């Protein structure tokens, strides 16, 4: 058989491509369910880890329903109905201006306190970075943060996902004394103020990416959180005025 004939070459190429396509699409479709589930559970893990609850992936679902009391979608600083917050693809939302986004918001309850969990998404050096940041009820104090990335350099930008970096965030404030939104500035060393954290040496572009991501994504929430906080404080005060109720 002459394997260098034109007709043979074309046939070989065609058959090879079809076989390869069949094998790969079979692999992709048969594994899809498992992969999607991994991604879903990982998202729950990440959300939980932003309120400093660490779980194994397998147990994430049960713990998630324990802590997360409400999933909201905020658009133009108002809650909107009929959209599943968990299924929103943030990558498609962050390209819009903050007030036009369908921004998912998770409200968690832990040890009797309410926390707002805000998903974030932005740009690193090589690809997207994302994360979750949880705020205390005053909508300003950061309670916990978790970041992740697609393809930042290991040892440099990729360090944003390590505790060394995320542990810098708790107890920082995203609002100043007058209640204006400031965000968090990533500094080149010597971070001191309550709106500053130290960046990663060698990972400047990724660190600045984190700063911009927080700045950009939080804008979609702050006015809503303030009003939510105000209405909630009012109801808490109402409880306090009734001493018998608070004994329970």
């Amino acid at each position, binding site marked *: 058989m002459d*394997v*260098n004939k034109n007709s*043979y*070459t074309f046939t*070989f*190429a065609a058959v*090879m*491509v079809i076989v*390869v396509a069949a*094998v*790969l699409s079979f*692999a*992709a479709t048969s*594994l899809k369910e*498992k*992969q999607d589930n*991994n991604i879903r559970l*990982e998202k729950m893990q990440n959300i939980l880890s932003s309120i400093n609850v660490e779980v194994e*992936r397998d147990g994430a679902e049960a713990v998630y329903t324990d802590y997360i009391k409400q999933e909201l979608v905020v658009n133009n600083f108002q809650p909107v109905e009929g959209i599943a917050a968990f299924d929103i693809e943030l990558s498609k939302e962050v390209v819009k201006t903050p007030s036009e986004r369908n921004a998912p918001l998770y409200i968690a309850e832990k040890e009797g306190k309410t926390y707002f969990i805000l998903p974030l998404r932005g740009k690193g050096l*090589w690809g997207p970075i994302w994360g979750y940041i949880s705020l205390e009820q005053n909508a300003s104090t950061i309670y916990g943060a978790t970041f992740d990335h*697609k*393809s930042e*350099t*290991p*040892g*440099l930008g990729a360090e944003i996902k390590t505790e060394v970096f995320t542990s810098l965030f708790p107890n920082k404030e995203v609002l100043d004394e007058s209640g204006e939104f400031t965000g968090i500035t990533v500094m080149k060393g010597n971070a001191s103020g309550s709106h500053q954290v130290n960046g990663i*040496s*060698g990972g400047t572009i990724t660190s600045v990416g984190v700063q911009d991501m927080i700045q950009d994504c939080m804008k979609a929430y702050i006015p809503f959180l303030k009003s939510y906080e105000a209405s909630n404080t009012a109801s808490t005060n109402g409880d306090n005025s009734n001493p018998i109720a608070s004994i329970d």
Partner: protein
Amino acid sequence: MAEVQEVKKQAKEREALFSKKNRQLISDPLNDSNPITVQVLGICSALAITVKLYPALVMSISVLFVLSAGNVIISLMRNYIPNRIRIIVQLVVVASLVILVDQVLKAYVYDVSKELSVFVGLIITNCIIMGRFEAFALANSPWKSFLDGLGNAFGYAWILLAVAFFRELLGSGQLFGYQVVPKSWYLTEGGVYSDNGLMLLPPMALITVGIIIWVQRSKNTALIEED
């Protein structure tokens, strides 16, 4: 197929599975014909992913699989591949194997697949793989090609791990993510030690590979070219 089996049979009759020649297929790439330090192939990935040991290890294992499986597949098809499109055929084989590996990792060992993310794609462009397909698998029996794939992957792996060992140790004071340089030595803790940030950057990978080549050539003088 009959033809291939015929060739295999002859090969078996001629020599045992682990004859000296076959063993050399594994041992040579570790030193005398090391893909990185002697043939200078696969350098790009050796620079890119040796900041830490763990990704380097996972990368080595993935290359091991892709290279040995790919070598066997190419070797099985070698008498049927039209000469003019052989490079494309090789590329299709590598790419499909890599995608397959990626999909399986994503489904069953999700954490490892996240660790690998970009590097999986890098396997396709790893010159060692195409180099071995073209230079060896196209002309040899499947068993020999398999051994050759293993040997070259091991040759690649040990360089990768050696470079990653020094870069992680000197660059972040860790090995496999565990702190090995005592915390109390660091300047920030009142000690006198500081990690060398340059080790984390690609240039130091090149220099580390260079030092390994230097050491290797001074031990193995046969490798030194005559001027």
